[in-house]
């Protein structure tokens, strides 16, 4: 799901950087009040876990492979703001060290996975926890993968429409929405299921220790 360099047009990544800048500033507000001596080590451990999870590829039915995000557990344990900042840091490290996602695409990746993923997880959890808490955590985790997948597919799929030569040849990513939507979303339905199982395990562990913020 990490969009590499060269796939997004400047018409996409420059506004995305502006939006991400505002979102990072919003997330950093009140950071001093939020962070305390107990939160920082937990956040460090969970951020390191998300960083490692993003690099472990697991096979998906259909011959492809994918990886968990870990953004739902960050969001449920620490809230949207901290999760967004921590996941942006994860994305920057994965990009710089492993080439997993591009620097030009960092803002789009961070907005899709870090912000939309964590916001979707928290909203889904809050909406569903009265019915069944475990199911709410699982649904939140699944949505935290599928919604970013949808946003990434949209960002990629509109590239041929907004950045092309006079003859219509795409200048950046060549596939349209009819191809990117199923190609990105279908594998992420399965990845979301794996993320749900993992997040429920982490949630139970964290809840037993009263770490949860959501």
């Amino acid at each position, binding site marked *: 799901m990490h969009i*590499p*360099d060269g796939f997004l047009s400047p018409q996409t990544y420059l506004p995305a950087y502006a939006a991400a800048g505002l979102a990072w500033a919003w997330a950093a507000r009140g950071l001093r009040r939020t962070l305390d001596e107990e939160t920082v080590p937990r956040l*460090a451990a969970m*951020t390191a876990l998300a960083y490692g999870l993003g*690099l472990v*590829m697991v096979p998906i039915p259909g011959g*492809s492979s994918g990886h968990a995000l870990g953004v739902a557990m960050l969001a449920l344990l620490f809230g949207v703001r901290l999760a967004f900042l921590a996941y942006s840091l994860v994305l920057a490290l994965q990009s710089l060290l492993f080439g997993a996602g591009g620097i030009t695409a960092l803002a789009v990746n961070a907005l899709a996975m870090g912000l939309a993923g964590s916001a979707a997880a928290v909203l889904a959890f809050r909406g569903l926890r009265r019915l069944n808490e475990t199911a709410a955590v699982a649904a939140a985790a699944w949505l935290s993968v599928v919604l970013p997948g949808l946003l*990434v597919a949209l960002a990629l799929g509109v590239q041929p429409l907004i950045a092309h030569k006079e003859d219509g040849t795409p200048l950046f990513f060549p596939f349209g929405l009819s191809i990117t939507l199923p*190609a990105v979303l279908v594998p992420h339905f399965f990845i979301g299921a794996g993320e749900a199982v993992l997040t429920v395990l982490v949630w139970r562990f964290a809840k037993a220790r009263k770490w949860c913020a959501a």
Partner: protein
Amino acid sequence: MKRRLLLCWLLALLPPSYAHEVHHAVAAQNAVSVRLTFADGQPFAFEAFEVYAAGSDKPHAVGRTDADGRAVFLPPSSGEVRLRAFAADGHGVDLKFDPPRAGETAAPAASEDSSSKLVFGAGLLLALFGLIQLFVKRKKTP
């Protein structure tokens, strides 16, 4: 006379009809092979790629990677090339390099030491959070 004119006209049509034929010439040449893999070593197989000569926005070569994830092409006579490879799900690369030309041997590929990078990245993260922890402690110390 009319028949002769008709014959001449028909003969005049012959060269264009020959022009539809596609000729072939088999030659042994030195191609460049770039192997593309995912982080876990799985080949980036059967995906589209494009090769551009330096400064050109018209593709020098287009094709698909093979089952082993290799993009194979004949490079332009000089200069860097830009290789772009795409999967429909957003995976791919966009890289520039100077390909080896006929008679040259490619420099051995740098080994990808993923585990040390992973440890380095985790170390960076923990060091950063360690600094934040120090800052938080100092803030609360009267």
